[in-house]
């Protein structure tokens, strides 16, 4: 479980986050959604420690990140897996080396043990026989899956995903969404996903946090989001014709 209390963050002179408090629950896929520029990625970067908020606190279970010394910080980061928007695989390493990287850095396992674990997680994300390929030689969807494999190889307690569907076709995007949710349940980890994709909201949004202009304006589940009267949420959810039509059909049926 991750708890954030009154997080405020500025970039330059601009207030990006204006006091956000919420809880990201364990064993669930928690989604941060909102329009571009609403502060989703900045909030995520505050959670993983890439940005230091001006005010507020972030608790991992009962450990406040602001109170941690350097060693505790390092230990926490070893418990974190991260899926970046572009995958962020290391170009100079092949797939096997990419996935093995956290194990090489943080464990004292023998190479054969590490290789076994790498093959296990690659199999888990439905990728086999690509160990010796380089990131540039595989598709965007496969890169995302390799990135998920790298994020979970060291059994993280927390998984963060920054727009995991960006640049993917709808079918592959659903595969990635489902994979994230399955892994969250299987390993009972706290997963936080930044997204502006309504399909992801419908598929995997077990808890949804909606941001607008740096403020948390609504939170709930994927079932609740379609019933809320909050004008900011409805204008975001029903911004596409498809969802408008679905809503109209539902109204007619009622």
């Amino acid at each position, binding site marked *: 479980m991750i708890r954030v209390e009154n997080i405020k963050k500025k970039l330059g002179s601009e207030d990006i986050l204006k006091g956000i408090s919420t809880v990201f629950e364990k064993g669930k896929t928690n989604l941060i959604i909102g329009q571009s520029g609403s502060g989703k990625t900045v909030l995520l970067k505050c959670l*993983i*420690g*890439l940005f230091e908020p001006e005010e507020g606190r972030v608790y991992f279970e009962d450990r406040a990140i602001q109170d941690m010394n*350097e060693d505790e*910080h*390092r*230990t*926490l*980061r*070893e418990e*974190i897996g*991260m899926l*970046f*928007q*572009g995958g*962020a*695989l*290391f*170009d100079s390493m092949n797939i096997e080396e990419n996935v093995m*990287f*956290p194990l*090489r*850095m*943080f464990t004292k396992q023998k190479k054969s043990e590490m290789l076994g674990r790498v093959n296990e997680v690659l199999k888990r994300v439905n990728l086999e026989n690509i160990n010796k390929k380089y990131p540039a030689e595989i598709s965007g969807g496969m890169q995302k899956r390799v990135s998920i494999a790298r994020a979970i190889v060291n059994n993280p307690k927390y998984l*963060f995903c920054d727009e995991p569907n960006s640049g993917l076709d709808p079918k592959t995007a659903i595969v990635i969404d489902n994979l994230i949710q399955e892994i969250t349940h299987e390993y009972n980890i706290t997963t936080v996903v930044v997204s502006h994709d309504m399909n992801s909201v419908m598929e995997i949004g077990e808890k949804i946090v909606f941001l607008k202009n740096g403020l948390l304006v609504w939170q709930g589940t994927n079932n609740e989001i379609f019933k809320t009267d909050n004008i900011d949420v409805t204008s975001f959810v029903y911004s596409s014709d498809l969802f408008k039509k679905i809503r109209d059909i539902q109204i007619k049926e009622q």
Partner: protein
Amino acid sequence: MKYLEDIGSYFLMIKKVFSSPTKTSVLKELIFKEIDDLIIGSLGIVAFISFFVGGVVAIQTALNIDNPLIPEYLVGFATRQSIILEFAPTFISIIMAGKVGSFITSSIGSMRVTEQIDALEVMGINSLNYLIFPKIIALLFYPFVIAFAMFLGILGGWVAGVYGGFSTSDAFIQGLQKDFIPFHIIYAFIKTFVFAFILATVPSWQGYYMKGGALEVGKASTNSFVWTSVLIILSNYIITQLLLS
């Protein structure tokens, strides 16, 4: 004000490069890779340029001697002095600022743009140590490149001088040995170590702290070459003033 900020951030970067070291077994591999990329990979261009510039120095010296009172060994003498004192350490370092410096900036800059550096940081790895420390260690071997350039520059001078009919082999070799001051070699290698540190760190700083996309990576590479060259020339002046005057 911006320059002061940049200087401050450069020195803070240097401090962080030497803190929170990466796991030794991983670091060892990274160092060997950097030696291959930065040192071994540069030998070809260094050999080519050194040999031919050495030849040009010998020919130009010979062609500018029209007084019969000037001894013939001056061709070898002038070639040796030019190559050892300036051409090999300084001129080759400027070329390396273009070759190695741009490579370092663009590779680190691309990692910044594609969030690979963020990935390292999120994993709890000191990305500055991971990326830059192996480059600094690899460039400790840079004096071997310069020694290689000195040898080939003088060899090029001898080949051009003797086979071009500008000097006899005996006279050229006599010139090479004439009034040799061993401290000049020490001076050249002291310069080389300073240039090696500049070559490893300035392009790294440019790449690590760049912001933006692919276009900015290109701009950072150009800035890297300019600033590395400026710092090499300035430090060359300071070291020469301190050690030779």
